[in-house]
């Protein structure tokens, strides 16, 4: 395998990893605050739909992004209501949100555009296009580094770069700010946070809202960033669950989340190029095995055979103030 092919695979790795990463960080905020969220999938899906729909109607990818974030946040608020205000079962709420998204996107898309549950093809202005970073062309002659810069680092949509920047940002917010300290504390021991006179409810709602916003960007990336050109039915295709798997894999830490998502993104990129694996290792690997691998790996991690994944202690428990 030559360098260029490798770079192409890595390039699609980055593209595939981006929605996973954004959803994974979304889940990280929520779960670190003690709110389990298996509704990442649904939030991404509504965001993907509304982003594509608004982008196609207005012709602006940015308005689409805003709409996508808005749609995702609405579902996040429903999840917040169910799991914080009404102290319901967070898992059941997540399941409901995923179904709601799977159904409502097709129902609305069908009545709005009448194209069998998809949005119209997006034109160039209505989607996020690849950005060629400065000097990418002029430096492409430099051996090794030149092609790496041109093929791998340059030429992604703005949302990919945003996602990469959100990783250090998440780290900084969680570990270097007072808000982050409170957020982590509320996921471990909400009673202590409450005793310190800080509102558990407000903290958890802000975590859930951040989660909604990030899922919104993830969805918009799926549907409106090149090479995607619109929404198709069920287009998240389990990415929300892979992001959840990545979150466990990363043991709820931002930098590890980046690693895990790149790994899972790599597996997805390989799935697109089955010929490559055969060429490199000489054996035909089943595509189904590759698609199942993130889930199998997560089960192994969860089983505690490779390091132990310990979730935030108060995760999934509604907080009841003293009676």
């Amino acid at each position, binding site marked *: 395998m030559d360098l260029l092919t490798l770079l192409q695979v890595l390039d699609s790795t980055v593209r595939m990893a981006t929605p996973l990463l954004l959803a994974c960080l979304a889940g990280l905020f929520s779960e670190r605050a003690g709110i389990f969220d298996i509704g990442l999938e649904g939030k991404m899906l509504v965001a993907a739909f509304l982003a594509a729909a608004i982008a196609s109607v207005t012709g602006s990818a940015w308005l689409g992004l805003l709409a996508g974030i808005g749609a995702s946040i609405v579902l996040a608020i429903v999840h917040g209501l169910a799991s914080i205000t009404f102290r319901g079962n967070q898992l*059941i709420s997540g399941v409901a949100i995923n*179904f709601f998204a799977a159904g409502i996107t097709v129902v609305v898309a069908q*009545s709005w555009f009448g194209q069998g549950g998809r949005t119209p093809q997006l034109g160039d202005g209505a989607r996020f296009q690849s950005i060629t970073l400065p000097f990418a062309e002029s430096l492409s002659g430099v051996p090794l580094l030149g092609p790496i810069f041109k093929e791998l680092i340059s030429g992604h949509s703005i949302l990919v770069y945003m996602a990469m920047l959100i990783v250090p940002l998440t780290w900084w917010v969680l570990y270097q700010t007072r808000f982050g300290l409170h957020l982590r504390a509320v996921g471990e021991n909400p009673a202590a946070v409450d005793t310190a006179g800080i509102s558990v409810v407000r903290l958890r709602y802000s975590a859930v809202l951040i989660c909604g916003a990030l899922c919104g960007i993830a969805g918009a990336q799926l549907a409106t960033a090149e090479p995607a050109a619109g929404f198709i039915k069920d287009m998240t295709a389990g990415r929300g669950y892979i992001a959840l798997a990545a979150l466990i894999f990363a043991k709820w830490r931002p930098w590890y989340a980046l690693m895990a998502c790149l790994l899972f993104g790599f597996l997805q990129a390989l799935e697109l190029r089955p010929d490559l694996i055969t060429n490199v290792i000489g054996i035909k690997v089943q595509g189904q095995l590759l698609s199942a691998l993130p889930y*199998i790996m997560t089960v192994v991690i969860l089983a505690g055979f490779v390091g132990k994944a310990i979730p935030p202690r108060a995760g999934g428990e509604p907080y009841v103030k003293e009676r």
Partner: protein
Amino acid sequence: MEKMPKWADIFLIPVVSLILAAIFSAIVILAIGEDPWAAVKLMVKGALGSTYAWGYTLYYATNFIFTGLAVAVAFHARMFNIGGEGQAMLGGLGVALVCLYIPWPHWSLALIGASVGAALFGAAWAAIPAFLQAKRGSHIVITTIMFNFIANALLVYLLVNVLKPVGMMEPATSKFPKLIQLPSFRDMFSTADTIMFRGAPANITFFVAVAACVVVWLLIWRTRLGYELRAFGHSESAAKYAGINPTKIIMVSMLISGALAGMMAINNVMGEAERLVLNAVEGAGFIGIAVALMGRSHPFGVFLAALLFGFLYQGGAELALWTSIPREMIVVIQALVILFTGALDNMVRMPLEKLFFSLRRKPAAKPAAAE
């Protein structure tokens, strides 16, 4: 602590939740420019208006009884089995293997064999998540979700590469032998002059499902194991203190749950398709969650809720046929039911409780009514 009367808990709250879900569904239908009332009428006619319609409604209901019972049994031990979908897929594999590779002399024996195969495969698929929960503390919800995806990949692999007969394009097994075809409602209820349930897929499995309801009821409320299961569900620490083995309860409840989900396959794989196809489960594993929530995890409740969802499913299909409301509308309704009866339960419960207590307080002014 004060409590609401029991009838309010098991009847009033689900009904109010259901009405809320219906209102929101009506809003969605209005928003896409259709008439909700006409939609309801069409659904009733399409799902209950003829024996053909009933044949479909009961067929779907049969699936949902199995998956609903599966979720309900696990709920009693406070396990959330979200893997019904994968377990039902594997159950389908079990049924297919039993039907294809064993030469059964009669359908009744084949039905027993297929039930055992379906239950074993379904239980086996639940066994690993259950073991990991019991022994390693891995969260059952996450592992069962992962196992759904693994099951899907496994089934695609098997159907495409192993089980597909040579020369066929579609990833599916060959047809099961004619001899072991299960009697459909048409065979059972038609008389010489009138043919009932013409062309509908409801079959004898419906009665197996009803029997399963009775067995689960006996198991949960009439056996020592059921008692231990419920005790564990109420309080793990108290159950441990009483000498109940948590590993055993987690394993047993999940195995029963997986077996029930797997047994759905005798309806859809053996009774309807008569071969194993991809995506045979069609989301019934997830609907089991809604059914168990609505039915308050009681077999009779599950039975009623499964009928309701069978009605919604068949009615929804009719809607998609005759109006511009897509089939996915059912998924929206299902989501709203899960949301209101499951996640937002307290939103309905709290105001109702307040209402009851304020009504009770007035007569309670006389000292006799102390609780």
